[in-house]
């Protein structure tokens, strides 16, 4: 038995020149499952006597909405950011938890004689995580520009009042760029490391020994989904706040 660890997802087949990887299939399946479940809830929506599943969905939604309001501090902003944050949360959560369904590793695709697993942990593909991170980061930039105005926003980075503030402004650029790395690699690293840890433990001592690590993976699957969505909300909140100094400046101008 050979321990097989790869960063890049396995390519199943090509459509034209587009490589179709197992994580792409996985993400489509997960999206389809979420959309189908939500359509089912919508179709069977009852106002007076909600069913069990509708109860669960309503509980999740209202709890998450109240939490977003408590973080961002205003109902108006929360209404705008909630759909994105909750979509990210539910997609990452389902994608992470789907890796714990037993037996799916046995489903393989025959690619020219070698067998490739059809399902792989979606968040263990850096491309997927990077796209979601870029959605968040670009949104944060747009919000910041919309709130502060283009020149006000540039003024945050190029500040000529004193050498120290000029240097701090340049450091802020690095901080914005580091957001991309830290946000994406937090999710990717946790899920990828969980997969590798599980594989190594299974390789060293099968059956009982990997179980505690599976529990740890279950915990990090939920926590990382939560953290990604909450950090999105926190970044947007930070970008959409006008600092008091600026208010004073604007009032004095």
């Amino acid at each position: 038995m050979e321990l097989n660890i790869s960063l890049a997802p396995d390519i199943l087949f090509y459509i034209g020149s587009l490589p179709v990887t197992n994580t792409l299939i996985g993400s489509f399946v997960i999206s389809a499952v979420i959309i189908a479940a939500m359509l089912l809830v919508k179709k069977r929506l009852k106002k007076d006597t909600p069913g069990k599943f509708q109860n669960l969905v309503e509980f999740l939604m209202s709890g998450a909405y109240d939490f977003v309001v408590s973080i961002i501090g205003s109902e108006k902003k929360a209404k705008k950011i909630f759909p994105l944050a909750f979509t990210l949360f539910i997609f990452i959560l389902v994608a992470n938890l789907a890796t714990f369904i037993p037996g799916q590793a046995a489903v393989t695709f025959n690619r020219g004689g070698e067998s490739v697993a059809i399902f792989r942990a979606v968040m263990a593909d850096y491309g997927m995580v990077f796209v979601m991170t870029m959605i968040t980061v670009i949104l944060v930039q747009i919000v910041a520009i919309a709130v502060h105005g283009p020149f006000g926003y540039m003024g945050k980075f190029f500040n000529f009042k004193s050498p120290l503030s000029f240097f701090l402004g340049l450091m802020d650029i690095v901080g914005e760029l580091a957001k991309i790395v830290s946000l994406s690699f937090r999710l990717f690293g946790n899920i990828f490391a969980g997969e590798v840890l599980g594989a190594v433990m299974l390789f060293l001592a099968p059956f009982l020994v990997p179980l505690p690590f599976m529990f740890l993976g279950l915990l990090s699957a939920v926590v990382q989904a939560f953290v990604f969505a909450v950090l999105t909300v926190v970044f947007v909140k930070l970008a959409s706040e006008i600092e008091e100094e600026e208010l004073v400046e604007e009032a004095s101008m």
Partner: protein
Amino acid sequence: MELEAAKMLGAGIAIGLGAIGPGIGEGIAASKALEAIGRNPEASGKIVPLMFVSMAIAESTAIYALVISLIILFG
């Protein structure tokens, strides 16, 4: 020393040293949060999510170390 062996050593040292700081920091965050919950159990609903977020931010340096060791290993 062969290049391959040096790479393996470097990757191990990078993530090992990089994980020390966040490990201590997250431990402090968790201990303070548990202390706070012990004093005021009613507030646990507010404390626990904030604890997770702050732990995730403290984790960043470990993530950078992980990136470096992954680049050394696979890049």
